[in-house]
């Protein structure tokens, strides 16, 4: 219970602290005026579209209380969709519908929800129940993301998503978040989702944590987490990197999912990405952030930046990585 680590050890590991993240990265590299872009999912969708970053297709936007009445007609022939508050944060207020049963709708857990319940949920979103600071909000209705089966096998109900921290346009750290029974199908680490650190060089699993403690198998289905490989890794990193051009945010978290038909899609951007990714990777962010800051001539295109980041992570050397061992020596210490 009372397990502590000395500040000196944390420093040697290069762990980024909350205070340092806020002062030295978010306040310094993230322009306040860009925050609304990422705090509003609707704006994010529109802006990244111009930079060839795909996101789940937009079905409908409910802006006013009276529009809720039309919602019924519009969803009449839809099987699955997701309702999100545009200004929600941390996955709050997201309602996912995966199917129908008679008049009722089905949630990923299999439980039923009536149309009246959905309409009440929409009304709550409009009132600002889930938005930052309780300001009035709009509800965004998106097409359902059906996760690529190889990845979804690792997740309990929810869609696994990939969080990539992008610093000045360079991907610096990545992890895969898997929902569990404990997290109630949500990919939220502090609710009990599993975080799997991903090798930036090739998208292979490094090691995994649940509730901040290392694990090696998925707690629900017992699959070995070290076997996880993300396909199209370079493309995913490229997508994340392009979001830098789209928003201008120097330090952000990019959340991606892989759809079985449409491929990688952007779920949301986060201007204040959390620190748990460091525990999932077993490494601190600071050495990598410093390496980017030390670049005399930053790369201009997303492709160059991704290439550099993968090279820094040892893309050539590590042909056959041995995950869950400390073989991944941070090549960024240079």
């Amino acid at each position, binding site marked *: 219970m*009372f*397990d*502590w*680590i*000395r*500040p000196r*050890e*944390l420093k*040697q*590991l290069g*762990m980024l*602290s*909350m*205070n*340092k993240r806020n*002062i*030295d990265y978010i306040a*310094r*590299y993230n322009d306040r005026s860009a925050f609304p872009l990422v705090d509003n999912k609707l704006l994010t969708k529109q802006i990244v579209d111009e930079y060839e970053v795909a996101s789940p297709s937009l079905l409908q936007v409910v802006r006013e209380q009276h529009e809720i009445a039309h919602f019924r007609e519009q969803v009449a022939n839809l099987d699955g969709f997701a309702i999100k508050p545009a200004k929600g944060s941390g996955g*709050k207020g997201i309602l996912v519908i995966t199917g129908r049963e008679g008049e009722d709708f089905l949630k990923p857990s299999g439980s039923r929800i009536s149309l009246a319940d959905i309409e*009440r949920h929409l*009304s*709550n979103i409009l*009132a*600002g*129940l889930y938005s930052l600071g*309780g300001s009035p909000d709009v509800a965004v209705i998106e097409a359902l993301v059906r996760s690529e089966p190889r990845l979804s096998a690792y997740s309990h109900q929810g869609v696994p998503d990939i969080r990539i921290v992008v610093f000045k346009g360079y991907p610096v750290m990545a992890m895969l978040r898997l929902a569990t029974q404990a997290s109630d199908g949500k990919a939220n680490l502090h*609710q009990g989702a599993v975080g799997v650190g991903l090798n930036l060089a090739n998208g292979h699993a490094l090691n995994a*944590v649940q509730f*901040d*403690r*290392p694990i090696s198998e998925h707690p629900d289905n017992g699959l070995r987490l070290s076997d996880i490989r993300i396909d199209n890794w370079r493309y995913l990193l490229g997508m994340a990197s392009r979001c830098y051009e789209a928003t201008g945010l*120097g330090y952000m978290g990019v959340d991606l999912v892989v759809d079985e038909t449409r491929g990688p899609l952007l779920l949301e951007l986060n201007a204040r990405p959390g620190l748990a990714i*460091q*525990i999932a990777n*077993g*490494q*601190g962010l600071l050495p990598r952030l410093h390496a980017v800051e030390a670049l005399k001539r930053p790369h201009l295109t997303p492709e160059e930046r991704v290439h550099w980041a993968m090279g820094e992570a040892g893309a050539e050397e590590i042909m056959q990585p041995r995950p869950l061992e*400390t073989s991944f020596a941070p090549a960024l210490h240079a």
Partner: protein
Amino acid sequence: MIRRSRAPFYLAVMLLILAGLTLAVIRHVQMGVPWLPGKQQPVWLVEARIDFEAWGEPVKVNLNIPEQPPGFYTLTEQAASPGYGFAITEQQKDRRAEWTIRNASGPQTLYFKTRLIPDAYAQEAPLEPGPVDATEVFLEEPAATAASALLQQAEARSSGPASLTRELITLLTSQTPDQNTRLLLGQESLSSTLVQLLNSAGIPARIADGLKLEDARRQQTLEPWLQVHDGDRWLTFDPRTGAQGVPEDVLLWRQTQGPLLDVMGGSGSRVHFSMLRQTLPALQILRSEASSDRSFGALSLYQLPVEQQSMFRMLLLLPLGALVVCLMRILVGIKTSGTFMPVLIAVAFVQTSLVPGLAAFISVVTLGLVMRGYLSSLNLLLVSRISALIILVLFITAGISIIGYQMGFSTGMTVTFFPMVILAWTIERMSILWEEEGAHEVLIQGAGSLLVAILAYLVMRSPLAEHLSFNFPELHLVVLGIILLLGQYTGYKLTELRRFAPMKGYH
């Protein structure tokens, strides 16, 4: 990507801290304000505030002011009243402050301030020469019969003026009053009945006006006290209990026959009193005794009217509360519900004292959460939900006060010190937290908020903090400097040392 040099910032902060410390040292050396609260002598600052409506003609106001009240030594007297001529007159032991102005109209406010040192050995006022006679009293039937019956009853059990007075008070304040008592008290107040009875028995008696001294009280009024002459001197009795003598915390403001306040050229006059217990160093008291109109330094808060001083005493503690919140959130990393909610709760604790305050706070929030559960099922819009919650909190507060009062706990009443809107928002936040993250998180944040509130309370309540913040207001520059420096802290929080503990495996 703004990357300015931090040197000017640190220089400015250092200057700020240095300026604060230097000013404090100067005040200490020049004014003799001590660093520690212990080396001080209490001084009561009593302020009489007169309000009236002037009629637009010459105005003359006079107020009875104390002269050598028993148990106190008068240090300074001062009047604040722009445009008015002021003088202190004295006629036949009747000491009066007199304000005059050629022309005034509209609402007027006059202040009279006096500083008193509690002094058990203070000289009593010299007695007026010549014998003191009882005033003649004419009572009408049936009061006269009742009075003489009551007096006979009391005289039978007493041996002198003092014991007679005690007996009369006992009879008049008895739990089961007889017919005579009821008749007399039905016409006059207790104290004037006593004066009439004693005078008709040939014992000189009068009503004196006393002021109960409590720190930082405002809008107080005078209470009647009974004075009886035993042939040598005036004895003072509490007409409510019969106790003889003036309690330490009572100042006899008026001991003469004249009216307390007399206003010519105006109407609707009222006088009320504010008081403040100051602590001044003995050195300074000596100094102001030597020259009573000398100010306590141009930058001293003691210059303000007493009402504002009481307010400032509270306000000046707020920065310390804010500092505690900064320390707990930035260095320790405790989660609280609402950034400065703990400070406001701590301020309420200062008024209620800790344990009753905690009990009241927890019960209001718990009841509020239960009711909020019902509100959330009503599916209301946010604004009306919060508004409804504010009204519910009001009901809960009133309920707790009434039930507490009925059960004999005056602590129930203290709940009114909590800011309603803050309570309502706290309940709303806690409730949303409960729905989204579960009871565990509510407990963590609730306990965190209360912990920070209690710490802030302890800091704000400590005599040293109270003394320094009020006597050395410039030290707040130092607090400001520390808070600015804390805003630059990029190191690990204490809680992160635990959170990141699994990283030990990768070291």
